[in-house]
């Protein structure tokens, strides 16, 4: 079995995960569609990065490209994604499978259907571990119990032999997390992990993820459409719209003082528990159709700050504050007077 350390390009001092200028294009019925367009980000150990966006913003596709889960063709992937210096884009299957599990893992929204209904959960958790480490079934089982305890499944030693249908949705998600953690990955990508769960269970799972990330110095990439979840969990956020990152920065400042019209409008459209206004601010229009984006800024048709210059070119990410970027052509004009720091 290949070990990550022996892969070409490995550098223990390199950043954990760096994604640079990643683009994913699909040939569709309506022509070439850029699902992800020149996205860059990086994560560090112990950090939680939230990728926020609506459906079709490219937030999931980005991460699937990084994990090597998109088959190409049909997807055309360009750019770089480096895990400790190892190139992931275009990497061979053996490189990818060496990194998956031990380097990076991923969990998905629908935990119940991600588990095989015909196999005991303990076996499913231990399966990859046994295959990769050559451990026998008994020690695999012990490892599975340990993992189930780590994700706080009550009476793990008995439940290890249960089947997935005997667990609730929240418990299935915990089992998925246990499977993802089986080989001690350094990066955990969670794609809408709590969207299918109830509010009280969502909180339990989110707190579990946060605790695990903290204990194991995990870099957590959390994909969500829920701004509230992002505000509570993330160290940094990246807001995506129509396949592009439109704003990035530390969570607190971005939510307190958004520097992109989309982030701003999105926050205004959220109802608040604490204070009730008569009406919600709204973003007019419909979410973008990727095959029919306007020439200039993708947010242009829905932007309340739209100006003639926005039709000319697509805005690039520019500095909007300490450690913050925003992709708006009118960035300086619109957001300059505001205090950028909080």
């Amino acid at each position: 079995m290949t070990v990550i350390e022996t892969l070409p390009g490995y550098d223990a001092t390199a950043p954990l995960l760096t994604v640079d200028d990643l683009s994913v294009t699909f040939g569709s019925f309506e022509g070439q569609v850029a699902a992800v367009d020149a996205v860059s980000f990086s994560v560090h150990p112990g950090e939680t990065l939230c990728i926020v966006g609506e459906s079709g913003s490219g937030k999931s596709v980005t991460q699937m490209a990084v994990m090597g889960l998109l088959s190409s063709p049909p997807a055309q992937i360009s750019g770089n994604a480096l895990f400790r210096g190892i190139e992931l884009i275009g990497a061979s299957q053996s490189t990818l499978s060496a990194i998956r599990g031990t380097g990076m893992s991923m969990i998905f929204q629908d935990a119940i259907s991600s588990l095989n209904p015909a196999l005991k959960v303990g076996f499913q958790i231990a399966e990859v571990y046994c295959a990769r480490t050559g451990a026998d079934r008994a020690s695999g089982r012990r490892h599975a119990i340990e993992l189930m305890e780590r994700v706080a499944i009550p009476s793990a030693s008995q439940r290890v032999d249960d089947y997935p249908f005997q667990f609730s949705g929240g418990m299935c998600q915990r089992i998925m997390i246990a499977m993802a953690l089986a080989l001690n990955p350094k990066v955990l990508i969670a794609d809408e992990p709590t969207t299918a769960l109830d509010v009280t269970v969502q909180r339990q799972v989110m707190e579990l993820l946060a605790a695990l990330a903290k204990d194991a110095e995990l870099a957590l990439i959390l994909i969500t459409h829920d701004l509230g979840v992002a505000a509570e969990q993330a160290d940094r956020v990246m807001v995506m719209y129509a396949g592009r990152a439109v704003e990035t920065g530390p969570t607190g400042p971005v939510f307190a003082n958004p520097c992109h019209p989309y982030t701003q409008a999105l926050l205004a459209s959220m109802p608040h528990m604490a204070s009730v206004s008569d009406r919600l601010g709204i973003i007019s229009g419909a979410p973008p159709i990727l095959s029919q984006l306007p020439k200039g800024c993708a947010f242009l048709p829905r932007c309340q700050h739209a100006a003639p210059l926005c039709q000319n070119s697509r805005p690039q990410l520019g500095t909007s504050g300490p450690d913050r970027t925003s992709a708006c052509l009118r960035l300086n004009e619109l957001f300059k007077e505001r205090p950028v720091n909080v």
Partner: protein
Amino acid sequence: MTEVSNSLPTNNDEDSRQVRVGWRDYVRAVLHDYVTLFALAFIIALVVFTLGAEFLAPHEPTGLNLRDRLLPPGAVGRSGDFYLLGTDELGRDLFTRLIYGARVSVSVGVLGAALSAIVGVTAGLLAGYHGGFLEDVVMRLVDGMLSLPSLLVALFVLFILGGGFGNLILVFLVLHWMVFARMARGLALNAVSSAYVQAAVAQGCKPGRVILRHILPNVMAPILVLFTLEIAVLILSEASLSFLGFGVQPPDASWGLMIAGGREHIRSAWWLVAFPGLAIFFTALSLNLIANWARAVTDPVQRWRWLAPHRKSRAAA
């Protein structure tokens, strides 16, 4: 804060999702779709020959000519007659018999399948929509009838009633409606739980209207496919029943009967079996292709996809 308004921009894909679709668009699309074009042409030709058999057939269907027995395709007989597809063991023109046989085979297939579909779909939709006792009765009946050995029942009934066209169709109706009933009931169950059917109920539609206007159009596609498959199945069943002597009686022709009769000469005169066989094959294939096409054009989403490329090329030109 943000502007308060509910206005939406008009769809920016106005052009490519044009509202009205004219018949020209269909013609254009069919002309570009060679496979469907072939199937349509075959079926149209079949219908024309079937209806106009008296005028189009080159020979008499029952005209014996023992001197010209078992001539291969394209042969010229001793009396100077040209036989396009050859002759059978009694010297009858195979092409002519094929045309007359199409009458029986196709009408048995279409009528039998259509009647089965009407009875079966009605029973299935009612069972699926109303559920309860009605569903239990219908579905147990379906299960029971499906477990009968169909050939045996057909032979038994035809033995009592006697063979012939009308009885054959009656037997097919009795033996095949369950297939439709079972499928329609499954589809109806699915549709009943779907939100748009509940919405129709909430809107105040009566049960009949819910079934006819909201459920039926949405379950037509798979039923249509089953219908064309059943036509092919019935043409073949007719063949086997006629072969056993309980279907169409000689000297009338049917494709099945022709295959049955040709079997004993298969080593010396392959065309006796090959051409009726090909006729059945191409009929079934064409019906399937047309069913696929019909499914596409009756569904608004698929229709748009199917028509769009041709419309785009037109716009470009």
